[in-house]
């Protein structure tokens, strides 16, 4: 079952506090795993492997490297669980390791400057909007799950690493701006400006697919 819910409101990620039984249980699992309990760690793996793999897959853009990243990230997390202080959520700590591994893969593969997450690269340009067209009410319903996934993945894959990485962490994994900034070693302002540009670029690409048929494309004059 796919829950697309264009109608849903855009609530942020659920914040887990100390009183949350899920958070307490997770803290206990982390403690057990820290003591070397592989079964406890396996439970944490089971919870987060899909999301870690998806994030890695979006950054490195192939299955083989994504699997490498998944393994390396999980092994590192298991080995260095001592350095997880419990100030942040376990998942945030884990995904940070995975993002670093993913970016390292990219850098090894390309000597491309676009791989760099440097603050200096194109953050002050004005966001660009070309295609302005109304979408169908529920355009995603015209497609099967598989088709829709393909459309959405292809759109993300067309973004430069610095944009897709921020978009994945903020809008797919639903991490906060602060968490994303911390993971990527960027300022809050840089995260915000890249996120906006990523959103606008995706909107642009999806408009070509999801626009209401027969409508004229408008444009800023």
């Amino acid at each position, binding site marked *: 079952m796919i829950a697309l819910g264009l109608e849903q409101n855009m609530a942020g990620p659920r914040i887990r506090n100390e009183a949350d039984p899920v958070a307490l249980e997770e803290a206990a699992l982390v403690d057990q795993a820290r003591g*070397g309990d592989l079964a406890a760690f396996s439970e944490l793996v089971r919870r987060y492997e899909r999301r870690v793999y998806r994030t890695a897959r979006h950054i490195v853009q192939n299955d083989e490297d994504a699997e490498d990243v998944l393994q390396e990230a*999980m092994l590192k997390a298991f080995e260095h669980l001592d350095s997880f202080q419990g100030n942040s959520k376990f998942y945030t700590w884990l995904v940070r390791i995975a993002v670093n591994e993913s970016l390292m893969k990219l850098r090894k593969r390309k000597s491309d400057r676009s791989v760099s997450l440097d603050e200096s690269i194109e953050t002050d340009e004005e966001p660009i909007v070309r295609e302005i067209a*109304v979408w169908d009410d529920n355009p995603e319903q015209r497609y099967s799950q598989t088709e829709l996934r393909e459309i959405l993945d292809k759109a993300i894959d067309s973004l430069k690493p610095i944009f897709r990485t921020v978009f994945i962490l903020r809008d*797919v994994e639903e991490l906060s701006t602060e968490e994303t900034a911390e993971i990527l070693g960027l300022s809050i302002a840089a995260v915000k400006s890249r996120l*906006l540009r990523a959103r*606008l670029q*995706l*909107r642009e690409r999806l408009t070509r697919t999801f626009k209401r048929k027969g409508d004229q494309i*408008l444009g800023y004059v």
Partner: protein
Amino acid sequence: MVTCKDFLRELGEYLDETTDPATRSALEKHITECPNCWVVFDTCKKTIQVYKGMDPQPLPDPVHERLMKALERKAVTLGVKEDCSEAKA
């Protein structure tokens, strides 16, 4: 007076609902008067929602199995509890 350029610059904060109330009402006023900016806002919002609604796909079984194998090997090299207790028993 909010221009389209201003609106685009503030769009990220507006989508995340992190603008201050005065800016927010100025931006809201702009999109009631400017169809282009309304469309950009609306389709941007839908873009975010369509991605948020996608659940991660299950990991292919072999990928999961290879991961668990690698972890077991790691546990052995780290000499974790299970192995120690077995060795002592």
